[in-house]
């Protein structure tokens, strides 16, 4: 609303002049501070939630508690090859699903439906994995392709509904998540999927030829020890693809236009309906690949259960928010979340601090990254302007 006068020279760039740091570094520093703030607050929660020590005012004990927890966390995430492998294992599905949410964000769509898309992709992969008998490489390719197609269709449905009827994707994706989870629960108990001799919702195992190879397979250590699998490589390749899509391609330019100003996209002769469907197809396919990777590699040991999508869909939103929807930011955020998860397991095992703390830490990181001004107030930093989180939500209309 500012009625700026028509100055002969346009207003100067928002690039902060008083700071010796380039813009990118300020943002990195702020994110690091966000992480630190989250860890400090979580430490506080660890400390005061130990009721015994709290009652006795045992501050030293509380601090030891915090120290031991974080040491276990760090060790679990990076302290050994096994820790690193676990980090990668947990990060892999988050990269897939995070990229799914990120691409949708770029096109102005809020994909809360990664859970459903992971389910769809995983289910397709598991079926191709056990029902078809072909040699290893084509089998994996076929199973992953099926996962992409199934996830893509599930996601594309959301795009179709939005383009055709205006149904808001926040609602349809949430609803389709429930539909998918009940559908999986039912399908896994049908004869088409159910493991022989089981009465609960568990699928048959995929054939050996469809299993994704282990990343550290060449070390010939136990696969329970080093679970990281080839899905990670596919995820990184996908991140490269997304980078190309958004930065270099015509389609990506259209997605970005649609996301930044849908009316301008329409006026420029782009087809918002088709782009919406396309973006959701791609987003769904990415999440679907994540489902495939979880089934064919991953911690599911080659079969599907009724909960194999876990919290991937929701964590993916946090990951994309944290990575600001850029492919590399999202990948980095997924690795961070994976590290927290892997470390959290160790922490629960060693120090008996419930792994749910990891959820708290993650939420706090997202908060402080999404609200840089809050982080700045806490650390008494000067406002350098221009890096406030973008407005993602554009109303229900």
């Amino acid at each position, binding site marked *: 609303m500012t009625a700026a006068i028509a100055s002969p020279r346009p207003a100067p760039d928002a690039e902060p002049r008083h700071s010796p740091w380039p813009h990118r570094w300020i943002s990195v520093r702020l994110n690091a501070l966000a992480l630190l703030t989250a860890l400090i607050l979580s430490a506080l929660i660890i400390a005061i939630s130990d009721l015994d020590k709290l009652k006795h005012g045992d501050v030293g004990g509380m601090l030891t508690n915090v120290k031991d927890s974080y040491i276990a966390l760090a060790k679990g995430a990076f302290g050994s090859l096994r820790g690193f492998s676990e980090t990668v294992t947990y990060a892999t599905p988050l990269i897939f699903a995070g990229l799914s949410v990120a691409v949708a964000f770029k096109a102005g769509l809020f994909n809360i439906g990664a859970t459903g898309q992971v389910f769809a992709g995983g289910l397709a992969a598991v079926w191709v994995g056990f029902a078809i008998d072909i040699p290893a490489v084509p089998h994996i390719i076929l199973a992953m392709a099926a996962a992409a197609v199934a996830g893509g269709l599930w996601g594309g449905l959301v795009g179709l509904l939005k383009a055709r009827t205006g149904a808001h994707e926040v609602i349809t994706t949430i609803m389709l998540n429930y539909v998918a989870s009940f559908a999986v629960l039912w399908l896994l108990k049908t004869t088409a999927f159910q493991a022989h001799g089981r009465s609960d919702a568990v699928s048959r195992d995929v054939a050996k030829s469809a299993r994704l190879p282990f990343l550290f397979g060449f070390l010939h250590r136990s696969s329970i020890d080093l679970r990281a699998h080839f899905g990670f490589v596919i995820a990184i390749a996908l991140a490269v693809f997304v980078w190309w899509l958004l930065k270099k391609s015509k389609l990506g330019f259209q997605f970005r236009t649609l996301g930044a100003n849908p009316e301008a996209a329409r006026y420029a002769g782009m087809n918002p309906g088709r782009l919406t469907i396309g973006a959701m197809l791609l987003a769904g396919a990415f999440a679907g690949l994540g489902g495939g990777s979880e089934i064919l590699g991953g911690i599911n040991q080659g079969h599907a259960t009724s909960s194999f999508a876990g919290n991937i869909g929701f964590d993916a939103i946090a990951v994309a928010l944290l990575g600001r929807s850029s492919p590399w930011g999202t990948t980095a955020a997924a690795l961070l979340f994976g590290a927290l998860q892997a470390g959290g397991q160790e922490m629960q095992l060693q120090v008996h601090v419930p792994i749910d703390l990891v959820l708290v830490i993650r939420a706090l990181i997202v908060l402080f990254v999404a*609200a840089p001004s809050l982080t700045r107030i806490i650390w008494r930093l000067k406002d350098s302007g221009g890096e406030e989180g973008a407005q993602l939500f554009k*109303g229900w209309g």
Partner: protein
Amino acid sequence: MSTPTEVYRDAQLAVGRSLEQIKRSRNLGIVYLILAAITAWRLTSHAGTATFNLSGGHSFGVAATPLAWVVAGSLAVMGGVQLARGLGKWQTAALAAVAVVFIFTLLAWAAAPNSFAFVGMLSQGVTYSAPLIFGAMAGIMCERSGVVNIAIEGLLLSGAFTSALVGSVVNFWVGVGAAMVVAALFAWFLAWLAIRFKVDQVIVGFFINFFVLGLTSFLGNRILAVDEAYNQVRTLVPWKIPGLHSIPVIGPILFEQTIFVYIAFALVAFLAWAFAKTRWGLRTRAIGEHPRAADTLGVNVNQLRYRNVIAAGAVAGFGGSWWTANVGRFNENITNGRGFIALAVVIVGRWSPAGALAGALVFGFFDAMEAKLSFLNTGIPGEFVQMLPYLATIIVVAGFVGRSRAPRAAGQAYDSQ
């Protein structure tokens, strides 16, 4: 002499329906025909009489197969009419009627040739709808003020946890009070970040959901699990409203409920009245639609948003203690996505308290029906019945709400400069 202008005025009257209206009408017609086909194909298979048990030993019976044929026929006719020329202003009423009749037929088919507790199921449905009503009212209070609230789930969950913990340590009603305070605090945080820092409201909402889920699970494991005494509340017994509860059918459904249900209904009535009749309602609607207009007239937009969001938090906190009252304890993630359903209810109900009430009752009813149908052992997988309300929501949102009238300013931070 008839001028050309008059001729075209007549043409204007003749047009009457836009391309959108025609499309929507066609889609509905197709839905009716599909329902007719399903009814004829599947729901005619159970012979015998389905007995619907009412209260006090009363019951009525329906011959399942003839009913299904009649319904299938009527649905086909309606689908045809809808396709051919649309039902105009009766469209919405017709849809509601179709939904009720179809479900009734489904129930008759499922029950035949046995009987089942029809009134019991409806009553259960009303019970299940209570937390959805609280969640939806919290959502409406926020959204009507122009603040999008994706955090209903987190607010409900925080209320459930707090009421269980405080309720165990002190007593139930103190627990409820504490739940309201805690959820209001989270809501304040939502408002603070959204208003003061202009953080995207959906992101803050998600933060609260993640954070509350993590925190309550963590503290649940670390505190509630330490000692049973921290997680044990006496469940609330229904309170029969004297006189009213003995009305046949209606009485047992509506007036033999816990205080939560009564308060939920009262809240809906109160909000509907307040939005329409009071100064608060007028101003709230104004800041949700056109905050700048309100600001130029001296209404303090952000202050009112703070108040409404915080009040909404208290409402959600109260709703969260419904779980404590019903289950008697807290379990990890006990709300299990109910907050998101409440959000859907807000939208399906078109941001009006009465509409949301209807939506919440439908969802509650489906919850109850799922339990009953699995008990009747019909061969329909329970998962399908559980899926139905979600599918129905998609159909309603796609077919009817569409590009409907959400508060225009929802989701946008307001800054007078």
